[in-house]
């Protein structure tokens, strides 16, 4: 395996140092790192982070290979600085059995661009009616720890209670897509001033907040871990803040798009901005940023949701919900949180690597940058700027809400257990299998 010497890198944005990557681990730091025979990666001024971990990726395989495959999605992940992604369960067939999660896990291992951890469905076929065989998935080769019906809400309170209780046996976590279904029938966008004007059926904030409130109380009652996906409203942030103060074992996620974009963008009826939960108001965006800054929100998850062109090249009502995000997530976080002084790079490492790895119970990811630790690393140039061109991305889909927008930051290199998956901002082909 190639040995790499990263010269002048700034771990977590701190003082520059040299970092030696050898035999899959961080072999040396500082003066000790200068070793002959290593391939030098000029890293002056670049920020070194632990490899990013996404708790919320849709890789679409099996079933919707026209939108994404494990191969194309994990290429996108590596280019975005990720060394591990959690592949959501809403595939076809659904990831609700040990067989399917093992298949996805193997596809990820074979692709080799980053670790792929399948998320198990909470209920059979995401139907919300009876529990899937959660234990079998947990004990499979895929060793599933995160369970979610994402895309759909586990809306039945009894089913949710049972799931929360049941996963305690193997230290699992239920990741809830909080959406009260009756309050969101036919919903197309955030319910408020813009929906009233545009004549689109509203997705009210309360439909999310009511489920978040119920679930934190359920988690308290049964003493389980709860993870709330894509918090999008100020009210949800308040409820999670209250629950944490009360000692409830809840963690929460924000997506890059809910940190950056508002429902005003829907005014042009461009389906690239159609997503679930929907883009909210400027006040909600500010609350989500504040929640991430003060630790109420634990992680940034991409909710990378690729869709084929025909599902977005149509009228708003017919378009699919979702946007891509793996290759823009870190830049968006830099723009709205780091460059504004609300998060340090050490905080970024926490919300995009350490915390998601901990929630997913990954042992080799989200580790400190220290001698002997697994070399899952991401090297970022925060001074770079680039215009997002979806057609040039590695994801197989082009539904990026940031298309045409200039964003700061560029992932220069990604290392997966010491092997470079990305160098000079490009995928390293051929060496990864």
């Amino acid at each position, binding site marked *: 395996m190639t040995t790499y010497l990263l010269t002048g890198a700034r771990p977590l944005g701190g003082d520059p140092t040299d970092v030696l990557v050898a035999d899959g681990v961080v072999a040396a730091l500082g003066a000790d790192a200068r070793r002959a025979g290593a391939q030098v990666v000029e890293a002056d001024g670049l920020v070194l982070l632990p490899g990013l971990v996404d708790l919320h990726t849709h890789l679409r395989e099996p079933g919707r290979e026209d939108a994404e495959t494990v191969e194309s999605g994990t290429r996108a992940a590596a280019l975005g600085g990720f060394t591990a992604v959690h592949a959501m369960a809403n595939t076809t067939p659904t990831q609700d059995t040990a067989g399917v999660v093992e298949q996805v896990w193997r596809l990820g291992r074979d692709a080799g661009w980053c670790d792929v951890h399948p998320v198990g469905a909470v209920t059979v076929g995401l139907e919300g009616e009876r529990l899937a065989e959660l234990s079998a998935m947990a004990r499979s080769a895929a060793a599933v720890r995160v369970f979610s019906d994402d895309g759909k809400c586990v809306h039945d309170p009894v089913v949710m209670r049972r799931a929360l209780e049941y996963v305690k046996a193997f230290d699992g976590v239920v990741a809830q897509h909080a959406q009260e279904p009756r309050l969101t029938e036919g919903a197309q966008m955030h319910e408020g001033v813009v929906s009233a004007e*545009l004549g689109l059926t509203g997705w009210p904030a309360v439909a999310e907040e009511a489920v978040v409130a119920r679930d934190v109380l359920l988690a308290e009652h049964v003493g389980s871990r709860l993870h709330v996906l894509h918090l999008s409203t100020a009210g949800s942030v308040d409820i999670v803040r209250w629950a944490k103060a009360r000692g409830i074992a809840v963690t929460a996620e924000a997506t890059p798009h809910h940190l950056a974009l508002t429902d005003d963008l829907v005014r042009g009826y461009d389906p690239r901005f159609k997503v679930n939960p929907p883009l909210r108001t400027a006040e909600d965006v500010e609350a989500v940023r504040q929640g991430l800054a003060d630790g109420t929100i634990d992680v940034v998850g991409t909710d990378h949701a690729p869709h084929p062109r025909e599902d977005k090249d149509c009228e708003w009502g017919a378009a699919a919900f979702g946007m891509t995000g793996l290759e823009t997530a870190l830049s968006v976080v830099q723009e709205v949180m780091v460059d504004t002084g609300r998060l340090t790079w050490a905080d970024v490492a926490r919300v995009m690597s350490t915390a998601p790895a901990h929630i997913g119970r990954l042992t080799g990811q989200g580790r400190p940058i220290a001698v002997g630790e697994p070399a899952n690393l991401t090297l970022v140039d925060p001074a770079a700027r680039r215009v997002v061109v979806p057609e040039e991305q590695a994801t197989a889909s082009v539904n990026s809400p940031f298309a045409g927008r200039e964003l700061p930051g560029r992932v220069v290199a990604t290392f997966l257990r010491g092997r470079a998956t990305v160098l000079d901002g490009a995928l390293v082909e051929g060496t990864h299998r």
Partner: protein
Amino acid sequence: MRHLLSAADLDLGEAVLVLDTAAQMAATQAREIKKLPTLRGRTVVNLFFEDSTRTRISFETAAKRLSADVINFSAKGSSVSKGESLKDTALTLQAMGADAVVIRHQASGAPHTLAHAGWTHGAVVNAGDGMHQHPTQALLDAYTLRRHLVGDGGRADATGRDLAGVHVAIVGDVLHSRVARSNVQLLRTLGARVTLVAPPTLVPVGVHAWPAEVSYDLDDVLATGPDAVMMLRVQRERMSSAGGGFFPSPLEYTRGYGLDARRLALLPDHAVVLHPGPMNRGLEISADAADSPRAVIVEQVANGVAVRMAVLYLLLAGGDTTRGRDEGTSRAGDGQERTDVRTDETRVHA
């Protein structure tokens, strides 16, 4: 004006121009020979993804009276889940050389997408999209209001006039109504005051940003003496649980928000009653009200043709010097064009 997608597209000058042009068009419709040569050789496509015989016939009549070729394309049920997409339909019509596409679609924003996605080069006229907009309905309503309420109750020439000082109550299912949305915007542009009247369940969250007052009490509003009352259609299925459960029963709705003889009597003498049709007699409006002398509902239909003639004329011929295929129209500007529209022929039914 390149397209007409929303009532908000029109500023005061443009809105008044449409109304004035419609008045000239209406005058030509009183002649023995109603057909004008203005859009000869131009093709207007009526692209209807949703049933609406009334609106389609109105646009069809308007286009034919301007000598345009009319293609009716009914695409109901073929758009969303199966069959041809809106995009492919639009590309097909583009290939056939549509100069204007009049679109009715169940999805809010579909006309906007059609106009801006680069699928067609023709002018796009929104003939009603989802719960969003129905701008020609608002224009024909404004035209009707101006005829009756401005210029000494229709006895003096209202050309060039707006609706300043006019108070209009819009009553009914505001939440689901594209007619209400277009009317609130256009009436405001024309200087009128609007009060929306509905049960709270049928008023959208976010209505506070609209340039209109909101009341939940029809009798209170009628007591203020509005100049016009516009009744909106209420779908009976909205009361069921599956339909959203917006009100307990048709009877309770009618008691609170139906326009009947008693409420009609509360109105000032000059006030008029409008309804975009089709009416649910006995639900939002009683036969007494619908058939009363102050109801201008049938006239609205006639005015719809004149207004749609004006819109097609202004989009395809008016103020556009690059096309020049139409006849009988001067290139010198709006004033000249107006003169040309009303020249020749004797008015028979004046």
